[in-house]
């Protein structure tokens, strides 16, 4: 047991080094091509390029598919906050820094939980694309964090009924309320009192819910790896 743990840790350490190197190389590319990428993103936003999410990494079917879908979103969030916390924007207040590290750790816990729970059924690590985000700018980081958190809330809300196993549904419920706590905090940082703004909460007092296709269509601007969601339940 102990031996396995040691091997595990070494493997993890090795992976981290590999990831870090890869990240550094990507950072260089990101910054070298920042303006071009920004323009490309604007262009992509203008034209309606439909993606059917029927090619690439297969999320799978049934509950496994939904858990992999959640795992993909948690990978995205964890990667984002890891990058935010690796080099915070200038003059970040102490409390803000502490709570951002909290959020990073929560998203990593979610990601690692899904990875562990899915075991051999887990999709591989996704490659993210944060070239549109200016990590030195508080405005850019907070706007992205808000978008990710509100998206995550709507994703879990919209996928809940697709889950067949009650225990998995409870797990999703345990996570989505934490995402909503994040969303409210981030929104309040941007505009105090906007924690449950009318852009997310409707006249019945209901939060948004989105289908996996709607969520992936929004998220794909930040995910390089192609995702096949065509086998998800609907």
């Amino acid at each position, binding site marked *: 047991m102990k031996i396995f743990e040691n091997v595990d840790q070494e493997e993890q350490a090795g992976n981290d080094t590999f990831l870090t190197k890869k990240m550094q190389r990507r950072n260089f590319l990101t910054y070298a091509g920042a303006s071009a990428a920004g323009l490309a993103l604007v262009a992509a936003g203008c034209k309606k390029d439909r993606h059917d999410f029927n090619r690439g990494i297969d999320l799978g079917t049934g509950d496994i598919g939904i858990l992999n879908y959640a795992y993909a979103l948690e990978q995205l969030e964890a990667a984002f906050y890891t990058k935010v916390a690796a080099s915070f924007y200038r003059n970040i207040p102490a409390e803000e820094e502490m709570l951002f590290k909290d959020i990073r750790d929560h998203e*990593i816990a979610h990601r690692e939980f899904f990875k562990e729970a899915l075991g051999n059924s887990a999709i591989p690590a996704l490659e993210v694309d944060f070239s549109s985000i200016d990590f030195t700018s508080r405005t850019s980081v907070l706007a992205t964090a808000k978008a990710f958190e509100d998206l995550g809330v709507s994703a879990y*809300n919209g996928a809940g009924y697709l889950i067949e196993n009650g225990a998995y549904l409870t797990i999703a419920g345990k996570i*989505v*309320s934490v995402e909503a706590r994040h969303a409210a905090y981030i929104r309040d940082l941007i505009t105090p009192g906007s924690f449950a703004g009318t852009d997310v909460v409707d*006249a*019945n*007092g209901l939060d948004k819910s989105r289908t996996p296709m709607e969520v992936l269509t929004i998220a794909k601007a930040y995910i390089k790896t192609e995702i096949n969601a065509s086998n998800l339940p609907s």
Partner: protein
Amino acid sequence: MNFLNILRDIEAIDPEITDRLSPRRDAIKNITSFGSKVALSALPFALGSMFKKAYGQTGTSSVNDVLNFALTLEYLEAEFYTTALQRTILTAQIPNATAKAALERIRDDENNHVAFLKSVLGTAAVEKPAFDFEAPFPTVFTSYGTFLAVSQAFEDTGVRAYKGQAPNLLGNKVVLTAALSIHSVEARHASHIRQMRKNMVDGLKPWITGTPTQANDSGVTAVDKVYADENSKMQAGVDITTLMGATAGSKISFSAAVEAFDEPLTKEAVLEIAGMFIVS
């Protein structure tokens, strides 16, 4: 929520919906065209009446039980904020316009939840109980600090209550999605109220934290039951503190493991908490 998609999807998930809504199958098509004509602002209420038709009058008792349980909690929250914001001794202590607007926003959300659930349940809706908030907390409407403490407890309870009921709505696209969509709003409220209290309680965060020996982070021991077992590090048999952390070789800390997952409460546990405030 996409209104038209929901109607289409209900039909796919629950073929009997057409019979519940109208004996004539053609009615569904009429509803679709109706949906496209009504103004956007009217849609939520139109949706409410659809729910009522589908599940209020002929719905299964277990779904109605869950909805009535939710309604009872929403009655409690709605009356709590409505009463509080009418008490001038209390409102005089609200420190600024942002705080006041936030409390009004929460009050309105809770009242909207009541109206929504009542419209869904129709004649099956339970009556509003008589509440007494000042018996268990005598200064709740005279001390801003007490008021916020009870508010936090209510919001965190609401989050746990909806979460606990989710498995009873398994696979029910319409009702489960609505319940989850209220659940996350309660969590947004809880996060904000916790921010409003952060200078009153040492170490209070927008999320529920804990230690191996402390589940209640609210600073108010009278609400221990609201936070019972919130300090769990185990999820679906996985010890979260054994998982990889942010830096090479590190693990997820105990507090992060607690914060990252909110825990459900059973209906019985919630009713015991709510019962403190219910007179009849």
